[in-house]
């Protein structure tokens, strides 16, 4: 690798990491120190901000709520998208192209458009303020993308494998779960990455569909802004804690990312 390339990538990484470093720096400072003056690392190192979050159930339950509906969303997405993607990649059927395009158009719907009707719909079926409501609402964005990604990966697997399996006497279910899924494991990894990504980061719908029991951490964070000003330290600490699940997910799928981001269709 040439030197200019190395300098380029290092400076871009620095640009990415600098704001995050500043957030972490803030999370270990007291509010007096934050507003008192600028320092590149905490002068009086304190865990007080994290203590506030870890000792108050209304804070840490927010994390559980968020993780709960994100996992639920990824699970529902995979279960419905896998057979559909298989159908799109292997068969021609009435209206297949239209259906595929219609699915994708849902990815183009601004969440703000669906705010009010979602609220009414989920209230009327008694799902308001439940984790499943947020998970279902997020399916609107994650399912079309998941079908798209998985279809690409599945089309890269030769048809002959299916046919050989049927000739060998495997049932569809057995073939699909035992033979086919392992072949597209990196596709599944990437799909989980994307459903996690778009569900974990979304706030507008998650906040609208919940009030107490399923309130996401991102919505709870707004309480640090009070009448007496902003509680910067706790806000920063809560922010740092929301980054950690993301890092874990990237770590687990890092070997699939390079291949998977091409969505199987290069």
């Amino acid at each position: 690798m040439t030197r200019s390339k190395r300098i380029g990538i290092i400076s871009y990484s620095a640009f990415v990491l600098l704001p995050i470093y500043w957030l972490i720096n803030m999370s270990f400072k007291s509010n007096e120190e934050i507003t008192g003056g600028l320092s590149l690392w905490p002068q009086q190192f304190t865990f007080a901000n994290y203590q506030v979050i870890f000792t108050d159930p209304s804070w840490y339950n927010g994390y559980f709520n968020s993780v709960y509906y994100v996992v639920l969303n990824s699970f529902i997405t995979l279960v419905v998208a896998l057979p559909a993607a298989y159908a799109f990649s292997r068969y021609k059927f009435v209206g297949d192209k239209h259906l595929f395009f219609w699915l994708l158009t849902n990815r183009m719907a601004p969440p703000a458009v669906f705010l009010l009707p979602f609220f009414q719909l989920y209230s009327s079926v008694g799902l308001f303020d439940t984790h499943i409501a947020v998970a279902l609402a997020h399916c609107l964005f994650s399912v079309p993308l998941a079908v798209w990604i998985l279809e690409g990966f599945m089309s890269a697997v030769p048809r002959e494998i299916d046919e050989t399996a049927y000739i060998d006497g495997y049932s569809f279910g057995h073939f699909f779960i035992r033979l086919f899924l392992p072949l597209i494991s990196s596709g599944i990894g990437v799909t989980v990455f994307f459903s996690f990504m778009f569900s974990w980061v979304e706030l507008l719908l998650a906040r609208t569909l919940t009030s107490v029991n399923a309130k996401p951490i991102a919505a709870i964070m707004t309480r640090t802004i009070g009448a007496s000003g902003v509680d910067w330290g706790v806000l920063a600490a809560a922010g740092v804690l929301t980054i950690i699940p993301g890092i874990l997910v990237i770590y687990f799928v890092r070997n699939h990312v390079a291949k998977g981001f091409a969505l199987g269709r290069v």
Partner: protein
Amino acid sequence: MNKVQNNKAWFLVLPVFLLVAFSAVIPLMTVVNYSVQDIFDQNNAYFVGLEWYQEVLSDPRLQDSLARQFLYSGTVLLIEVPLGICVALMMPTRGWTASLSLIVLALPLLIPWNVVGTIWQIFARSDIGLLGYVINGLGIDYNYTSNPVDAWITVLLMDVWHWTSLIALLCYSGLRAIPDAYYQAARIDRASSWAIFRFIQLPKLQGVLIIGVLLRFMDSFMIYTEPFVLTGGGPGNSTTFLSQTLTKMAIGQFDIGPAAAFSIIYFLIVLLVSWLFFTTITHLDKDKVKEQSHD
């Protein structure tokens, strides 16, 4: 791949169809329903036809935020796409540095959007933020909460920080899929690195770039949370984009009829522009293939 005609495949698609129909078609029909009625309460609703649409289309608030939205999405694409390609070309290809740079680049994508806003608020404020402090220290007057230009620059910088990684990662995986033989052939021909980029790498990136540009256009056009947290749409209305205007109208003022009409127009614009993007890009592709076959 030759596909088999089989209408039983509908059974495999049915769960997706039902799920998306439940969470997309019902709400969308509700919005359409609202957009053509004047609703006073549960029992008093009047059909008003296209009146709300006319009202909304002549509303200067909508026109202004629409213009801002196009300017914003356009600028974001112009910066992020070339920068993303550059970053992808610079990324190391093997060893632990490759994994590390993947993780670092993917990091901003997985931070909740309101936290992205918070991070940039803390980073860019002129009293407690590193960026604001440094810029002011250089003698440039910078305050994104009071100066519209500074606010724009900050929101744009935040978006570049947040989303360039997506383009970079897409391109990176596109580049990995180019067989070594192509590069060997180029070396034999003594191709310059520009020629390698122009005639080998860029054409191979086309597929992922279409996806990247579409995703970036759609998401930047729907942006809400990050500027809402960072600037609250201000100073004045200078960073109020379409989604924020819409939520203000629907929830703040409870003008359901106009808000619903606005929603439909908004959705149609995203659909139309995405479709235009998609067809022009794929048509260009077809023309190129035709040209080559004529040669």
